[in-house]
């Protein structure tokens, strides 16, 4: 008699293959709608137009002297463009990662995917890879167009700035794990996502130095690791005045990266278990 064996034989190699396929699937899905991809690139620029003209209304001979008093640079548009490029990742995590499982739910494929012999967070890791790639490309395109229209003058160390974004983004996507599971359990979370992303963007100082925030808001801003990420990237690339010494900001980012991944994964497992207990994986 032949011994019974499962048809699936999961190994680290099969997991890697699955990871690759998930990433490729999402990559194809993103570029399948090229107009949406172009819109992702141009939309932030539309939002920047009033910011640019407002900067002009406060500037003399193109120099934002008042702004320099807070930020340590009068290159207002470079400051804003960089902040907006990093904001694209916040939006990708909130809307892309947050809604990724919900879209699978709506598409009716979540239950089928859930039965695959894969660790479930791997599905989100695959999405993270493609989201990182597509958002990086869109942000670079946005900076390029923004540079042509308004100018972009990085005077600092590009490599250091890129290295700083790594713990920043890993931590951000770690948070995305928990958020995706939360959206999966809530199912209808547009208001939560819309206002949540806007508040995080506002408090992390995407468009202004957080030192201009009122006293009652500043502690909330300083409690967000993203604030130090934005600050450090600008400090390296534009030589702006930073909130804390750069090595302290990097230490905060590294610690928060580890914490966010651990918290994100734990929250994901807990919420995912709850959804299975409720039996609502296939409902939307």
């Amino acid at each position, binding site marked *: 008699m032949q011994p019974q064996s499962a048809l699936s034989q999961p190994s680290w190699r099969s997991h890697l293959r699955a990871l690759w396929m998930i990433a490729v699937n999402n990559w194809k899905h993103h570029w399948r709608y090229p107009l949406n991809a172009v*819109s992702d690139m141009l939309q932030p620029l*539309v939002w920047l137009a*009033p910011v640019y003209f407002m*900067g002009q*209304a406060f500037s003399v001979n193109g120099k934002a002297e008042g702004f320099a008093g807070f930020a340590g640079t009068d290159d207002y548009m470079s400051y804003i463009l960089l902040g907006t490029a990093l904001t694209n990742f916040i939006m990708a995590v909130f809307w892309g990662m947050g809604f990724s499982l919900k879209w699978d739910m709506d598409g009716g494929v979540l239950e089928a995917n859930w039965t695959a012999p894969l660790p479930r967070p791997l599905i989100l890791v695959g999405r993270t890879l493609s989201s990182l790639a597509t958002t990086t490309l869109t942000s670079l395109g946005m900076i390029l167009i923004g540079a042509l229209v308004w100018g972009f003058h990085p005077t600092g160390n590009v490599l250091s700035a890129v290295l700083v974004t790594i713990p920043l983004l890993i931590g951000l996507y770690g948070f995305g794990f928990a958020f995706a599971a939360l959206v999966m359990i809530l199912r209808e979370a547009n208001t939560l996502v819309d*206002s949540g992303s806007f508040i995080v963007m506002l408090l992390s100082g995407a468009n*202004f130095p957080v030192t201009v925030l009122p006293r009652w808001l500043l502690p909330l801003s300083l409690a967000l690791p993203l604030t130090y990420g934005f600050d450090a990237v600008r400090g390296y690339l534009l030589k702006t005045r930073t909130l804390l010494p750069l090595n302290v900001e990097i230490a905060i980012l590294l610690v928060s990266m580890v914490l966010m991944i651990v918290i994100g994964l734990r929250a994901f497992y807990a919420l995912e278990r709850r959804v299975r207990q409720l039996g609502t994986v296939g409902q939307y």
Partner: protein
Amino acid sequence: METTLSSGTHLTSLSRTTGLAQLRAFGAIIWREYLHFVRYPTWVIAFIIWPILFPATYIFSSFALAGPSGVGVTRFLEVAGTDNFLGYIVVGTSVWMWANTLLWNVGFALRGEQMRGTLESNWMTPTSRFLFLLGSGPVHAVSMLMFFLFTVVEFRIFFHLTFNANLFSLLAVFLAALPALYGLGFTFASLVITAREANAFVFLVRGIVMIFCGITYPLAVMPPWMQAVAEWLPPTLIIRAARLAALNHASLEVIAPDLVRLLAYGAFWLALGYLTFSQIERRARLKGALNQY
């Protein structure tokens, strides 16, 4: 067995479409829109959060641009004619929010019915079809008045913002803006049921308002060609007149030129909205595409 109609009996339709019946139907449509609005309690959150959250980015940016010693304010005073940049931005962004929510609500009114599968059955009733579109306007307009009220209260509490408003002029601006904005909304709504996927159109229209209409800055800082384009857009006139009425206590005479132009634009957009609706409705019935989405 044969069934014949006796010569003395004449067929009459059960529906009797009179002016009063149309008016009752219009009231029912508005009531339905109101029920839809209050049915989803997230509107309360939206009313509390968005009046302050949306302008906040621009406001904190303006604080940063003004500088710790207020050096930027001198320049702003030169180009804008007021140093109340906070009020200046709040008025501009509130009008933008009006246009934005108008496009998503009134602009998608018919599309929403199409998605719910009620468009066809509603259009079979002996009610003027344009009333279904017109009925989406009043509830939105009243909700925007509430939105403006929330904006004033919240900015008073959190930013100690004071307005030097002429309420009569402000009300006149609001009323003069209605035909132009809602005419645009009706035109948009008619096009949406044909295009079906219209998010990109919303992004385009609200993007134009955002770039050209001076929501956070005076038009004088834009290149001349952009200023010329801006003068043709109703939101530019609404923002300019509303700023004068809300911040400078401008009388009706001061804002009258903008109001007259707004009313002229209003007549144009309402007529265009009606014509577009008639054409699209006829086309949709001929093609039998009303229930498709």
